[in-house]
């Protein structure tokens, strides 16, 4: 006799906020979550890609908000508006991120402050709302997209590494604070995946540099969908006993 497991990745009936949804990992995550049945609210600083994406998502209704997450002070209001218009949340995926490749000796304070604001402070400003009954539906999952740069050094990435490593510490402490509410908090640490951010970097590399970076990944560069799959695994019932940890999805980058 064959028994059929329920679809453990089913997200029907849930509502997720996804930042950086206009491109790359955020966009792939929004598309996957919607295809698994979730309603998604898309947040990005660019309107055009959100409008195009939302028209092509299954299920729904979905929503979109144009917002620059460097404005950390306004994030409570952003979340309040989203909840009031679209209902309480089951979780969020913070995929928005920014990077400037510049050595420590030259990077300017305004550059690293913007990196920290978008990558790190916005993550805390968003996720702490999951402790509020008016925001959180009751139980759920928060996923921060960090990076292998949080765990392995890379010249020119000091500010980016700092911003992503902070997410790991934040996830562990938030996981303890939110566990009584059945809200889980985790990070995904991707290697280099083919996204607009990588394309920008690639324009500054010659062919041999590009090959050298790809060779750091025994499985080659990843795709945004590879990270979206991990986010869905953490958000869905498959991740119900996972909190306060970092899931490395890097094609073997850190195995060396």
């Amino acid at each position: 006799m064959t028994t059929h497991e329920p679809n453990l990745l089913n997200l029907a009936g849930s509502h997720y906020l996804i930042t950086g949804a206009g491109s790359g990992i955020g966009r792939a995550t929004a598309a996957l979550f919607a295809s698994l049945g979730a309603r998604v609210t898309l947040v990005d600083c660019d309107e055009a890609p959100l409008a195009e994406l939302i028209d092509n998502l299954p299920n729904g209704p979905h929503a979109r908000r144009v917002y620059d997450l460097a404005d950390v002070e306004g994030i409570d209001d952003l979340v309040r508006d989203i909840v009031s218009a679209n209902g309480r949340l089951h979780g969020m995926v913070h995929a928005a991120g920014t990077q400037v490749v510049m050595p420590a000796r030259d990077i300017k304070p305004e550059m690293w402050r913007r990196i920290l604001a978008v990558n790190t402070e916005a993550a805390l400003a968003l996720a702490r709302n999951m402790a509020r009954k008016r925001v959180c539906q009751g139980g759920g999952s928060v996923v921060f997209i960090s990076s292998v740069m949080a765990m392995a050094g890379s010249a020119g990435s000091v500010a980016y590494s700092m911003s992503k490593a902070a997410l790991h510490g934040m996830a562990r402490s938030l996981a303890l604070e939110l566990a009584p509410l059945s809200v889980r908090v985790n990070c995904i640490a991707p290697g280099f995946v083919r996204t607009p951010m990588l394309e920008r970097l690639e324009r500054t590399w010659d062919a041999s540099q590009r090959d050298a970076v790809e060779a750091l990944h025994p499985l080659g560069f990843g795709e945004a969908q590879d990270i979206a799959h991990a986010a869905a695994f953490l958000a869905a019932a498959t991740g119900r006993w996972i909190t306060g940890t970092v899931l490395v999805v890097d094609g073997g980058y850190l195995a060396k």
Partner: protein
Amino acid sequence: MEDFLKEMADILDEESVNESDRLDGFDAWDSLAILSVIAMADSRYRAAFSAQQVRAAGTVGDLYRLLSASAKAG
């Protein structure tokens, strides 16, 4: 040009630099300095250059002309 020269002086860890100065004459002209020039080009000129292109510039002035031409083209 004046702002560019100040920026280059910071990157090269010098009090000041001139248009005619050869880049390979500076102790600080290394792979990290090249990264800084690439980032400066991106943030100030919205221009993307490879390390190879930056390395090919002989003088500070060559670099300025490379960045300016790209800004005009963009």
